[in-house]
């Protein structure tokens, strides 16, 4: 039996949204597929870069956001380096991820990384074990970053709050 052909209506507002988030370059994509052929992550997963670019262009939200595909990009830039149209592909992926996150989709381990930033100003945790490791190597127990200055940490927190990040990962 032949497959049923389904008519879909492109949602043009989506590509404008992607552009607003910094992925305007996706409009240059002519769907050659060099990106997919170059993608190391796509060898292990169902992530298809070309398909993701198409979903952005046409506003196929269900294709763009269903499953984990969008989050399999390592941001290695191999696709972007080889793109004959100079599409800033990683910017497009980042824009689409920003949209997904703004709509409430965030993986727990990612949320944890984000919370680390809000709590201590770094993306990984820091505790007694690390302090000892540093001291044993003759380094200051606490590195001279926001970790060592409450005022600096408060400043960072204000920036995270002003840009809505604390709510995003809260």
């Amino acid at each position, binding site marked *: 039996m032949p497959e049923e052909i389904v008519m879909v209506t492109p949602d043009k507002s989506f590509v404008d949204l992607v552009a607003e988030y910094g992925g305007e370059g996706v409009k240059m994509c002519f769907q050659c597929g060099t990106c997919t052929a170059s993608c190391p992550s796509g060898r292990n*997963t169902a992530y298809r870069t070309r398909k993701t670019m198409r979903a952005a262009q046409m506003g196929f939200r269900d294709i763009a956001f269903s499953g984990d595909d969008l989050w399999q990009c390592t941001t290695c830039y191999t696709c972007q380096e080889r793109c004959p149209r100079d599409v800033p592909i990683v910017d497009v992926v980042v824009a689409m991820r920003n949209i997904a996150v703004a709509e409430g989709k965030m993986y727990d381990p990612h949320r944890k990384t984000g919370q680390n930033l809000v709590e201590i100003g770094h*993306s990984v945790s820091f505790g007694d074990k690390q302090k000892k490791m540093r001291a044993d190597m003759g380094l200051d127990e606490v590195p001279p*970053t926001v970790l060592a200055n409450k005022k600096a940490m408060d400043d960072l927190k204000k*920036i995270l709050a002003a840009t809505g990040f604390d709510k995003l990962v809260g």
Partner: protein
Amino acid sequence: MAKKYAFFLGCIAPLRYPGLEKSTRVVCKALGIELVDLKDASCCPAPGVIRSFSKKTWLAAAARNLALAEKEGLEILTICNGCYGSLFDAAHELAEDKELLKEVNGVLKEIGMEYKGTTKVRHFAEVLYKDVGIEAIKKKITKPVDYKVAAFYGCHFLKPSGIKGLDNPENPHILEDLIAATGAEAMPRAQASLCCGAGGGLRAAFPDNAMKLTKTNLENIKESGAKYIVDICPFCHLQFDIGQKDSGYSFPVLHLSQLYGVAMGMDAKELGFSAHQTPVKL
């Protein structure tokens, strides 16, 4: 004249592999590079995760770090590809787009800061190659090594090459040259530019896929005859060091600063190998 930079620590080096921070400090000193700690800096923030969640936050927090260096009047030096990726890209965007800079300064105003858009961001490997130079480095190598190594560039040192403009990302030579200066040899291997697997939030959320990429790299490294992995990124470093656990592989993982430390006759304690999970046998 001594070369002077603002040392941007990042997260993984100071908080997971402080030996990388330590070896960078001692090696830079030996090479006549003065590092001034970039005090009060935060996470760059990480390009694969934080930028993926909110580019607005990423840019504003990066601008705060860039502004700290601008105030010191120094170029930033980082030993991490992730930090280099974030800070270089953010500095580039803010230098190119005055409207965006204005917008970001609107956020920085809340903490009484302003970024004028002038900070230059440099990677440790780039500074060694360009500002110190291979010949000057060779003069400081007191204990040449004969290791066969895998040169692991990682992704964000050379790419996106359109704005980094350092080397050909498909066939680079900078790291091989820096390695050769110590007497070691970088062994050619298949898929040499393949990502370690850690980036983009994969290590945190999709570790199976991350490990597949790591294992492909390890197979290629073994095939090449290399006995060590030399990286220029603490996150690649971590991915290979921890990722080899139960993998059947045990390549010691050295950050370039650690390889230099060894070739300058510094001892293991000074270079912080105790933090490594895969034992470093030299």
